[in-house]
């Protein structure tokens, strides 16, 4: 395994090239070699760099130090001082006022590594999840006590001020959602914790449930007090047997300690909690399908509006929040909104838990401040690529976006990603090297959607199936150029016509693949060649008729 200690990035936009970026790059290569650092330091070009007046720029990770303008003559100093001895070369730093956008934000980190910063996973692995005393010893249930001394409106105020946004995929402001439920004047309300976590590549919620179940109970009690609910459900996917057991144990203990039930902390507030185990269906993560499922029905999403905040479980106002969202709540109450805002980026405060998967040296789970870049995750935490160079990543699970190499340096937070038309989703980062074929990957993704579509609405049910068939034909070597247009149309219609988020996003990775890897898909069709040498290409019977090339489908293909 090759673990890179530092990473040198040289800007390669047109302006930087004109001002000598190539020469700077070569000088770095040479000097790094001279100093015998080639194994520890990687060097690459970076393109998506934003405007600046100090080109060419050189960014060095993990310190996130930005030098510029760099001339080939400066390289020796930077290699000797910074890379070899570890001192920042102050005189070559770019003045902060010359940087804008994402670079300005990078430099504002003041050379600190975006280190792991655990809020959500703070207790996971440190406490005995089956012993409530362990949780209480680490300030557990203190936040609930604090909140019961405040009004519900004050509590919602703190969550609003913290800027917390939902971690279930959409990034909806949590405080605002709470206020919607609080506003309804109905006696019976529910809070639901969405622990269905079926997004491929995601297992962060499982670790919280298994490792720190009381944090979720405390958060749900706080939420219930804030919105005026007295009953709650934790909907855990059925495959998570251990999480279900631990949550049941935790609820039982909380009841024994008077932290659930009637008149909690001798107040007027009462709240109790049930566990509902899912029975295996991805769509049940969608909040209205989840509600149908608790009611004992097929998990088919409802038409919205009305939203669950006004018409949810058994028609009552219902607050649905993701596990990771809830796990932030006790810490925010204990430490205050300002503290929370000091972490992450201005539009997306706090941390994010990412699952790192695919062709990297180290897979697993990290919790880091919002705004870290994909390149940082791969180099620092995943210890580099395995079995080839970076080709693409898929963020946010099956319905997430495909990120090509030139978007690796976009900070990962809700808004930067939105600007780049990328979705952060659940925080799964599936990293692929050159050996992964995009047609094959698209096929696997659409196969998932055609199985998991609940079948209620036609655009989704038929669109997913049809797209899968077209992709299979392309993989078999019997695709046509018309197929490309059909796929594009299918992806558009899935988005426009589907009833719920499943269908609406099913086509998005497909669209990205058609945008960024069009040539590779076309090569499957025109040349009958799979550049990654993965697709079967079994049906390529080509008859030449004059100039015309006709492709016939093999029987039963």
């Amino acid at each position: 395994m090759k673990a890179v200690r530092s990473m040198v990035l040289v800007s390669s936009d047109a302006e930087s090239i004109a001002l000598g970026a190539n020469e700077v790059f070569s000088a770095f290569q040479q000097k790094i070699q001279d100093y015998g650092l080639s194994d520890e330091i990687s060097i690459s070009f970076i393109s998506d760099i934003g405007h600046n007046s100090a080109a060419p720029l050189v960014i060095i990770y993990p310190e996130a130090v930005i030098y510029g303008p760099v001339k080939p003559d400066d390289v020796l100093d930077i290699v000797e001082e910074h890379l070899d001895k570890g001192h920042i070369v102050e005189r070559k730093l770019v003045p902060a006022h010359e940087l804008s956008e994402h670079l300005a934000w990078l430099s504002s980190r003041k050379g600190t590594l975006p280190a792991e910063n655990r809020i959500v996973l703070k207790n996971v692995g440190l406490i005995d999840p089956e012993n409530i005393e362990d949780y209480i010893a680490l300030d557990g249930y203190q936040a609930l006590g604090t909140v019961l001394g405040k009004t519900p409106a004050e509590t919602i105020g703190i969550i609003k001020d913290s800027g917390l946004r939902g971690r279930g995929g959409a990034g909806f402001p949590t405080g605002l959602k709470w206020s919607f439920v609080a506003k309804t004047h109905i006696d019976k309300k529910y809070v639901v914790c969405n622990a269905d976590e079926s997004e491929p590549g995601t297992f962060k919620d499982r670790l919280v449930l298994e490792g720190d179940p009381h944090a979720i109970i405390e958060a749900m009690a706080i939420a219930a007090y804030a919105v005026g609910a007295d009953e709650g459900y934790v909907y855990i996917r059925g495959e998570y047997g251990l999480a279900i057991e631990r949550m049941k144990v935790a609820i039982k203990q909380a009841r024994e300690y008077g932290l659930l039930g009637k008149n909690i902390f001798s107040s007027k507030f009462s709240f109790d909690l049930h566990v509902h185990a899912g029975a295996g269906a991805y769509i049940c993560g969608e909040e209205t399908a989840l509600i149908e499922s608790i009611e004992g029905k097929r998990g088919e999403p409802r038409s919205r509006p009305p939203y669950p905040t006004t018409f949810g479980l058994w028609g009552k106002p219902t607050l649905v929040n993701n596990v990771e969202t809830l796990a932030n709540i006790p810490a925010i109450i204990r430490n205050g909104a300002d503290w929370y805002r000091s972490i992450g980026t201005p539009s997306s405060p706090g941390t994010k838990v990412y699952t790192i998967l695919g062709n990297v040296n180290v897979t697993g789970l990290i919790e880091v401040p919002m705004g870290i870049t994909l390149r940082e995750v791969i180099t620092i935490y995943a210890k580099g690529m395995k079995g080839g160079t970076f080709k693409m990543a898929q963020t946010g699970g099956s319905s997430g976006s495909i990120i090509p190499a030139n978007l690796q340096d976009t900070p990962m937070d809700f808004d930067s990603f939105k600007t780049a038309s990328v979705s952060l989703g659940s925080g799964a980062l599936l990293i692929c090297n050159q050996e992964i074929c995009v047609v094959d990957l698209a096929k696997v993704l659409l196969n998932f959607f055609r199985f998991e579509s609940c079948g209620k609405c036609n655009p989704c049910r038929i669109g997913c199936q049809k797209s899968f068939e077209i992709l299979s034909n392309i993989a078999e070597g019997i695709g046509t150029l018309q197929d490309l247009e059909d796929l594009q149309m299918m992806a558009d219609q899935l988005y426009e016509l589907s009833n719920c988020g499943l269908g609406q996003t099913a086509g998005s990775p497909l669209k990205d693949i058609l945008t960024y890897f069009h040539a590779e898909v076309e090569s499957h069709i025109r040349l009958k060649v799979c550049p990654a040498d993965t697709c079967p290409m079994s049906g390529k019977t080509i008859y030449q008729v004059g100039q015309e090339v006709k492709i016939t489908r093999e029987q039963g293909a």
Partner: protein
Amino acid sequence: MSVEVKNGLDIKKTIRELIKQHGTERAELIPIMQKINAAFGYISSEAIEELAILMNLPTNQIFTVATFYRMLSTEPRGKHVIQFCESAPCHVAGGRQVWLALQEALGIKSGQTSQDNKWTLLTTSCLGACGIGPVLVIDQDIYGNVQPQQVKNILSRYE
């Protein structure tokens, strides 16, 4: 029709017991069916009819719920159920080779049960164990980082 019995359990008696514990609220339907599925391996038409009577629901309502969820089966399955994850993260980690090896070793395809009723082979979506993909699950046992050449050895651990 004879009454279904498995492991000494009588289906009708079991259902009556479950109704006693859970009550007849609609919300209890899925939890009850999960327990039936766990005890009998599947939910037979006899079970559906009994539930319909005791819970006062039309049989088709119960049937559509039973067929909707992946973890509930309306057909008998083999002694051991193998679930193979075919979602993208396991695929990128080299899942297809394992899948081919699995089908070859068992001589059956996805959704089939072997002649001797020993194995049922199913594909499934992500099981939340992606950090150790490719993943396959046999009954309750999870196997991660599976290599194609390990498949035979893993299967041989089951009677």
